[in-house]
């Protein structure tokens, strides 16, 4: 198993290299000029050109690309923001806790609310409970996050005055953003859980379990749920990855200085090092989360674990055969 993990980690190097090359190329060809952005609207073309030379933006594509790859992969330096004059890595690390906090709370909400909703819906298929759960899930999938965010603000901040409308501070500042952000995730989780559970509870071994006289609770939580977990874990993993990089709208609505805001503001300003560094960092984070998901698969499903180990064994066999 460890070898599998190491192998996956090594595979991340070409993946990140690919991400770096793609994002660098996109930013290179992206219209707009960071030098013009720094100097402002009234800057003359001559002043902008001078600034471009100073920033090294006039150098050829290959020179800049190799310079960037050398800086990132050999010196582990994501560069310095054009605007903040601050290292991109420290900018990301400063903002990561805000985004991470939202992502973790949302993931917990997704698991703690979405999964029971899905199980309830599956167990009471076509009943009132199923319909109620699925209406909630449908609403979660259909309602745009920013609209829900504003409605929550109007109710809980403006009308009731219970929670702050925006900003960062104590835990109370994260309640509205997390609810707004998690709602869609809860809905996806509920729908996925329901469909996985429905598939499993019709299986022969569930019928056998019932025939053995096991209680419904035991059947559900000991036999059905573990076998329905794989797609559920996939949804959670994807959701976590999306939330880490994709809380832009929520961060913007609630003025939370997270990674999403950091990178979108950098895109608007053409702050290339921040955009490239942000994407690369999120790419690495997403790869790690996907690895974690795969590892969890192995612990949840022995067949997958055996498959991973089998790959290792067959690889060793091939190696031995080849001498």
């Amino acid at each position, binding site marked *: 198993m460890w070898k599998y993990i190491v192998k996956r980690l090594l595979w991340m190097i070409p993946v990140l290299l690919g991400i770096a090359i793609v994002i660098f190329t996109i930013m290179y060809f992206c219209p707009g000029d960071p030098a013009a952005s720094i100097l402002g609207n*009234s800057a003359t073309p001559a*002043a902008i050109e001078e600034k471009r030379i100073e920033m090294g933006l006039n150098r050829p594509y290959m020179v800049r690309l190799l310079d960037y790859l050398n800086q990132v992969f050999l010196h582990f330096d994501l560069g310095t923001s054009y605007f903040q004059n601050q290292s991109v890595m420290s900018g990301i690390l400063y903002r990561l806790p805000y985004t991470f906090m939202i992502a973790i709370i949302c993931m917990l909400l997704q698991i703690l609310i979405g999964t029971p909703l899905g199980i309830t819906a599956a167990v009471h298929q076509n009943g009132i409970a199923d319909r109620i759960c699925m209406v909630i899930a449908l609403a979660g999938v259909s309602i745009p996050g920013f609209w829900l965010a504003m409605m929550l603000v109007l109710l809980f901040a403006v009308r009731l005055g219970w929670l702050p409308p925006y900003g960062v501070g104590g835990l109370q500042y994260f309640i509205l953003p997390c609810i707004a952000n998690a709602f869609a995730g809860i809905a996806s989780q509920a729908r996925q859980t329901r469909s996985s559970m429905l598939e499993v509870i019709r299986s022969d071994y569930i019928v056998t379990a019932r025939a053995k006289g096991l209680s419904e609770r035991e059947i559900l939580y000991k036999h059905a749920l573990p076998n329905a977990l794989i797609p559920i874990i996939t949804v959670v993993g994807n959701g976590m990855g999306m939330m880490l990089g994709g809380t832009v709208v929520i961060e*913007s609505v609630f003025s939370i200085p997270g990674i999403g805001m950091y990178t979108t503001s950098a895109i608007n300003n053409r702050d290339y090092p921040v955009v490239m560094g942000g994407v690369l960092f999120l790419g690495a984070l997403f790869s790690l989360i996907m690895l974690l998901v795969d590892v969890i698969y192995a612990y949840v499903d022995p067949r997958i674990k055996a498959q991973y180990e089998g790959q290792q064994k067959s690889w060793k066999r091939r190696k031995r055969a080849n001498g």
Partner: protein
Amino acid sequence: MKRRKLALALAACMMATVVFTGCGSGAKQESTQAAAEPAKEELQSQSNETMGEADTQTAISGGKADSVTVGIMSDPENMGPWSGMSQGRIAVLFTTYEYMITRENGMAYGVLAKNWVQADPKTYQVELYDYIHDAKGNPLTASDIVFSFESAIATKNYGKLSVIDSVTAIDDYNVEFSFNKELEIGEFENIMLECAIVTQAAYEASPDQMATTPVGTSAYLVEKYVPGSEIIMKDTGNYWQTDESLVHGTSVHNVSEIKFSVITEASQHTVALQTGAVDISNGVPDTDISKFGEGGEFSEGNAVGVVLDNLTYDVEYNMSDSSVFKEDENLRFALAYAIDKEGVNIGAFNGNGVTVKDFANATYPDYNPEWDNEEYYDYDVDKAKEYLAQSAYDGRTLRLEYISSGMSEMIAQLLQAYWGQIGVNVELIGYDQMMGQQEQYNADGFDILLKSTGSTDYIVNQWKLCWDARDYREITGGTANFVVDEELDRLMQAALSTDTYGPESIEAFHDYLVEKCYGYGVVEGPINIVHSDKITNVALDIRKQILPGACSYAQ
């Protein structure tokens, strides 16, 4: 004709005032702090009343407050003194730092500079107050001015500073600036206003080049900066300028604690004012302004102030060789006469803006008020159709380029509708700020450009932003919109030169531009400022940003 002469004479008086208050005149005049009475550029707004004019009442005498929270749209990202310009930075710069001079209602006043004198056409000498210290108590001398300017120049973030050859400390309180060319009208003051001044001791003591721990000479010191969220500044109680008669708007400190709250979502500015989370904001969406006005849903305890922006929305034709406008004066006039400027004002700004009678607006001290009574492509559909009939327009779709932020999109749509009325098809091409800045020099990318431009001093410096071919020739071959016209160049340079700057050169340029119709102003937009009753007078800086320290507060 008599009225025109009278207007010219009045304008001449204004020029003389501007020149003799020592603002970069060609004459070797000494300028002093006491050259003019302080006049704050301030918006007086009363509860639930909308005021359209700036007031000149001083804020120094106004009431003081313990704290104020200002809603700003963007994070400064870097609070260092020389990190260029951004929407977030301009909102906090004047509260954090002081500059050599300040400008109010078009007049320059010394802040750190006690007086300044032009020694020769390319050299200026500035005397500093000898008792300046920064917010941490470090004394500021001429060597700090040299350090600040040299550091700012080294960043290459300030194009205006590129004309400086050297900055030298003559002694502890006198600095000499040498330039690589003879400066034009207003240029010296603009250079002095470009560079934030800090002491070398404070800068070197800062762990992050003042990115999060700025120390200026202003009355305020940053106590807490949470990037992307809030900045809290406190009055140190130890401001260096103790003579209140010498404290100008940007240095006034009527409030003990200022909190800038970064609110990136416009609708949240409305919520923040509703809930009392902020006291003042200029980020409330136009659609919500009426809610805070008289009879509005949230009018109780709040007020709306409307002040005219210094930006003018202009139409510029693409005058490159391949453009339909290059040789077709009739088409240029046809489009100009087809625009109902008042309709644009009402459609885009609910009538709170003003239509303009020049490429620039009427707020500049060297604007000739007589232009208000002149005909300036006044809306006339029949005339527009006549010009169109005489033009070579073949029914092709013209491309109107604009930056799709603020009200530009709405104005572009209105222009499209007006031009559609006379049978000219227009396609809208909206770009974000960055792309727009680049695409405006692409001769094949557009036919007409909608831009908003403005200057913080003289009308000629707004004209310069488009019509001074010396700044654009290398890229466009002519002016910013590709005009190659020697007479226009001559008139522009005459209006900018300190030797020839005056009513005649200004009038000549204005008349020539109207005659040629290479571009024209349409409307000057308003800025809506919503604030609580706690604030009785709203003070703004030259860029129309809120100066919370200089606002007056209810006792």
